[in-house]
């Protein structure tokens, strides 16, 4: 046993929690790097916001980083409700509800189809399933433009060309590869025994899907939703090719605002329109940011 004085002397050594320097080299490195990176990512947003609050004369002065001297919301108003496309001068507001009408069923249907596919691939393997899945992954690499005409022909043949449902189907088709991959990997990471238990309990394909798998997979559905909402909301090509003027989505309007050049571009309106258009997906990120990470962490990216 150590002597009493030895004990006393020992007490002088390090004791308790290791002192953590606030400005340790490690912290400086981590926060420094993240700070710089955040700057790189945030800078464009800053410029967009600042610009959208300036008047055109101020923009012409040049410094895009300078905060607005005179804040004006005119560009926002214009982008939302005044900017013209051809004869329609209702700004983005005209396309907003169209976008909603397109996005909601498209997101819903594409996720429904892909999740069922992923589930069938993960849990109910049948001969040839891999071959189809491989083709699907291949499909992820086909440029959309290439498929424009074949899809027009397909839609014409099934009589859905020009209808909202035609567009919804197109979005479902092009969302299918990545989403199916996501869902397949997620479902196969769930314990197989659960699936077996449900079969013993007499549940069939759909019963297991709806009663067992679905309730356990909400996070991955959120992930899929975020990817799809972003993709579909921002889509221009399909939105404009497979719809009609009165159902054009917001992005057509955005394209018109951004690409109609008159003298000097109205950057402030462009920026305001841009932010307005991105607002919906952005909102979904902010709201579900935490779920996003947790969803993938729950196995979405395994395999």
């Amino acid at each position, binding site marked *: 046993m150590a002597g009493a004085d030895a004990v006393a002397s020992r007490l002088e050594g390090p004791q308790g929690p290791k002192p953590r320097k606030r400005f340790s080299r490690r912290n400086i490195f981590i926060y420094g790097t993240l700070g710089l990176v955040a700057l790189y990512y945030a800078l464009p947003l800053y410029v967009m916001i600042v610009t959208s609050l300036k008047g055109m004369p101020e923009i012409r002065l040049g410094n895009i980083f300078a905060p607005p001297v005179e804040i004006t919301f005119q560009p926002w108003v214009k982008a939302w409700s005044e900017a013209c496309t051809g004869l329609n001068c209702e700004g983005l507001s005209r396309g907003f509800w169209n976008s909603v009408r397109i996005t909601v069923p498209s997101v819903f249907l594409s996720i429904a189809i892909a999740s069922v596919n992923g589930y069938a691939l993960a849990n109910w393997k049948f001969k040839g399933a891999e071959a189809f899945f491989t083709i*699907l992954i291949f499909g992820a690499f086909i440029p959309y433009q290439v498929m424009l005409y074949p899809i027009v022909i397909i839609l014409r043949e099934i009589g859905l060309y020009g209808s909202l449902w035609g567009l919804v189907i197109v979005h479902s088709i092009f969302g299918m590869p990545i989403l199916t991959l996501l869902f397949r*990997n997620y479902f196969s990471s769930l314990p197989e025994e659960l699936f077996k238990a449900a079969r013993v309990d007499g549940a069939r394909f759909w019963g297991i899907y709806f009663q067992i798998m679905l309730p356990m997979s909400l996070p991955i559905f959120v992930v899929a939703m975020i990817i799809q909402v972003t993709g579909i909301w921002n889509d221009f090509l399909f939105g404009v090719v497979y719809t009609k003027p009165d159902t054009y989505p917001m992005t057509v309007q955005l394209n018109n605002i951004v690409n109609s050049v008159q003298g000097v571009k109205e950057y402030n309106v462009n920026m305001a329109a841009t932010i307005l258009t991105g607002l919906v997906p952005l909102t979904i990120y902010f709201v579900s940011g935490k779920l996003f990470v947790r969803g993938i962490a729950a196995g979405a990216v395994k395999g």
Partner: protein
Amino acid sequence: MDTTGRPNPLFRNLSAKIAAIPMIVTALVVFVGGTVWTVIYSFTSSKLLPRKLFEWTDLFNIGDWSLSVPTGIVWKSFVGLQQYERLWGTNRWIVSIENLLIYGLCSLVLSFVIGFILAALLDQKIRFENTFRTIILYPFALSFIVTGLVWQWLLNPDFGIQSVIRGMGWVGFTFDPLYNASIVIYGVLIAGLWQGTGLIMVLMLAGLRGIDQEIWKAARVDGIPAWKTYLFIVIPMMRPVFITTLVIIASGIVRIYDLIVAQTSGGPGISSEVPAKYVYDYMFQGQNLGQGFAASTMMLLAVAIVIIPWAYLEFGSRKRG
């Protein structure tokens, strides 16, 4: 062997097969069908509209019935490999491919590296993780059109970053990647990474969170520095994440189009052209579908050669998960 009651194998898993019909139809009709269609029409001289490759000729009309038996074909607009010869003789196509290779390689490597490093930094139990993550992720909410626009602007030498820095007294400063043919593709890369790395980071972060904590402890007890632990231990363990990420990044690269159009329109000159834009321009601007299809076919062929064997190995041979 007694096979009493053995059901027809076709009907086993019937629900699964029914449920997979959308996938099967998409795979066969859209992806395979569309691809075959594209390949076939790449041998034609189609311009604005797809033109028939050939037509059947009916030599026999049987009796009074208007029943005709096709017995021969007449080539209509078949031009053999002419479109391909022209394609490979076109400077712009060559430049496009070079650009895609450079962009693809850089984008792939940098997406992985940046995405991973950011994820690793965020994984250090830091404060404000949520804030940092959101800042890095938000560009993903913006379309490429918008991304291109914003960065075109930031990189504009007359009032973007260059002019601001010059304005601060650094007169010789030059940073105009979009106006310099030899580096323009890197200018595009800056914007592409800005938009896309957030998603990659989030995927990686999720992957990191799935690593067994005991591995970290083992490495610390072994006295292995953190960077080595990442490089030699953690990264190899994250293979599944990397595969999903790889598919997402790679498919994005092959299809890159909007960003280029919005940011440079392929300029200056043709120095930032990419294959998908070549396809689009020839199909719709140049009204030469045949040429566009030939270019698409080359792209699809390249993708197929890489993807199909790989995907089959990756997804096909495994039992489960």
